[in-house]
């Protein structure tokens, strides 16, 4: 079993340039002198009958960037991914991936993509390494090249000792890593990851994040969907918040939090009976209140100071917690709902 790597000091394992506000709407910030745009989506729409799963989404992704689509289930993230992945024909809008139109150049685009789908589709009848060999052949790569890449990728995915195992005998996290290894067999320009860690236990998620972060460091362009805000914060340089097929907000995780939330959040619980009543008495504390069925969120620059004021008003919460704002708060602010319902 692979070891979970933890940096001394724990917490954030990489730093993000602070203070870089999003430039033009949803455009990548130029890196160096040239910025190569690998995905350009404008007014992208996908309709199934009367239902618009994707309802006018626009964004651009630059080479080397890590771009996220954050939103709850059913927001249209996977549909967007399938259109970018050139397997789903768009209803409206324009789309260029690697400079080509997916409607006309599907095989061309897919030749240079790596795809990690939401649902694993490894061949359960083949062994671990065989899955990489057969997949590499789909790209018309020579057998010897595929074989040597397969071995390197098995090492990268920390599966070298399981290369002759049956796919069914792998854990969920291992299957995901094998799927990522498989997606890299053609040395892709762009890696699409649809909910890469959904359904995995925390340790497996951290191992996976570590692998993905390495890819990011090597300059691989990542497009990923997630409904986990911590995942988006870890992996995305920039992201769009998607809800009901539309983009609600865009920017870097830090900028979004700055724009749509306060620095800190005080969470207080008074028990489900008293919550609503207590909320009236809390009015005026912090910048904003969010009353949820089980707790009240007080958005404030200084959470501790807000807590002092709460108790000064004679209220005794059953529990209280001061934390930093997260993308979850951004989503709540934008949609009035939480990400995971």
């Amino acid at each position, binding site marked *: 079993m692979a070891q979970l790597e933890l940096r001394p000091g724990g917490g954030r394992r990489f730093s993000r340039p602070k203070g870089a506000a999003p430039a033009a709407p949803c455009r990548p910030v130029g890196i160096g002198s*040239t910025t190569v745009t690998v995905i350009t989506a404008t007014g992208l729409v996908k309709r199934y009958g009367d239902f618009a799963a994707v309802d006018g989404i626009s964004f651009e992704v630059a080479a080397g960037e890590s771009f996220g689509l954050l939103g709850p289930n059913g927001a249209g993230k996977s549909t967007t991914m399938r259109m970018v992945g050139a397997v789903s024909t768009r209803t409206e809008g324009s789309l*260029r991936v*690697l400079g080509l139109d997916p409607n006309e*150049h599907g095989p061309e685009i897919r030749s240079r993509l790596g795809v990690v789908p939401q649902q694993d*589709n*490894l061949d359960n*009848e083949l062994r671990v390494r065989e899955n990489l060999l057969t997949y590499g052949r*789909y790209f*018309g790569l020579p057998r010897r090249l595929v074989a040597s890449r397969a071995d390197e990728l098995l090492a990268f995915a920390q599966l070298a000792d399981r290369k002759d195992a049956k796919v069914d005998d792998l854990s969920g996290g291992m299957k995901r890593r094998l799927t990522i290894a498989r997606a890299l067999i053609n040395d892709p320009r762009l890696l699409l990851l649809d909910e890469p860690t959904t359904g995995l236990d925390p340790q497996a998620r951290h191992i996976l994040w570590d692998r993905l972060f390495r890819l990011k460091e*090597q300059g691989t362009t990542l497009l990923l969907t997630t409904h986990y805000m911590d995942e988006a914060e870890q992996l995305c340089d920039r992201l769009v918040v998607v809800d009901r097929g539309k983009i609600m907000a865009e920017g870097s995780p830090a900028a979004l939090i700055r724009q749509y939330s306060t620095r800190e959040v005080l969470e207080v619980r008074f028990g489900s009976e008293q919550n609503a009543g207590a909320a009236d008495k809390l009015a005026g504390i912090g910048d904003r209140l969010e009353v949820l069925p089980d707790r009240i969120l007080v958005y404030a620059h200084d959470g501790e100071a807000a807590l002092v004021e709460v108790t000064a008003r004679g209220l005794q919460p059953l529990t209280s917690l001061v934390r930093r704002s997260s993308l979850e708060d951004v989503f709540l602010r934008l949609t009035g709902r939480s990400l995971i319902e």
Partner: protein
Amino acid sequence: MTLRQAQGGASGANDVDAFADEARRAAVAPRRFGAWYVAEHQIRVWRRYLGVNIASAIGTPVIYVFAFGIGLGVLVAASAGPGGIDGVDYLVFVAPALIATSAVTIASSEFTYPIMLGFKWNPTYIGMNAAPLAARQIMDGVVLFVGLRMLTASIVYYLVMLAFGAVPSPIGWLTILTATLTGLAFGTPLLAYSASLKEDRGQFAVVQRVLVLPLTLFSGTIFPLTQLPWFLQWIGWLSPLWHGSELGRVVAYGAERPAWLIAVHVVYLVVLAVVGWRFAVRVATRRLDK
């Protein structure tokens, strides 16, 4: 190999047109040979069951030779008289039909559950389609693989029959091809049907019992179609297995059939195979693009 060369650096690509050119080059081989890559994958899976496959490919014809040649054949010879059936020994009469039936049996197993597996249960087709392969190539590859399976099984079947003296004509080896054609004529429409199924509610079991079994019995295979009452003979005319068995008899022992009828057999089988195949491609294309 570094997993990732610096974007735009080492490979000299520094604008998006260079990415597009690179993609165009990368897609040349998959566009041309995609169906073969799919077949290659299927063969790799099939190899895992090689022992079982060889045993059944050899075992089945041997069992049938004993059942029909020695068992049933003796009874038939006693009642049919010295002329035999259609002017030949019973085993010679049934041999072409048995080879064709074995190809149909392969079709009925390979074009049902494995198709549902590829689209749904273990959706490897979705994985292929996320790679450069198109729905058309996936279906072509599946047909190619199953066609190869029919061909190899028919070769083995033919050799066993030959060893027992059941294929007298010098062009008897053509039964290998007529049997494979029969299997595809029966199989590709079934492939199209399987590709259209969203759920297995026992349809495949129904296909086996209500379609395959009656067809193998009432398609002029183990007795001439004319033995059936006139109001059931249409089954044979619709059944690719009857057309295939009759065609096999013409090449296996020189059965005398009018030229127009031989032409009907060939055309009917080819049309079924081609139309079914095209239909399967259409169904798969629509299904994968969602």
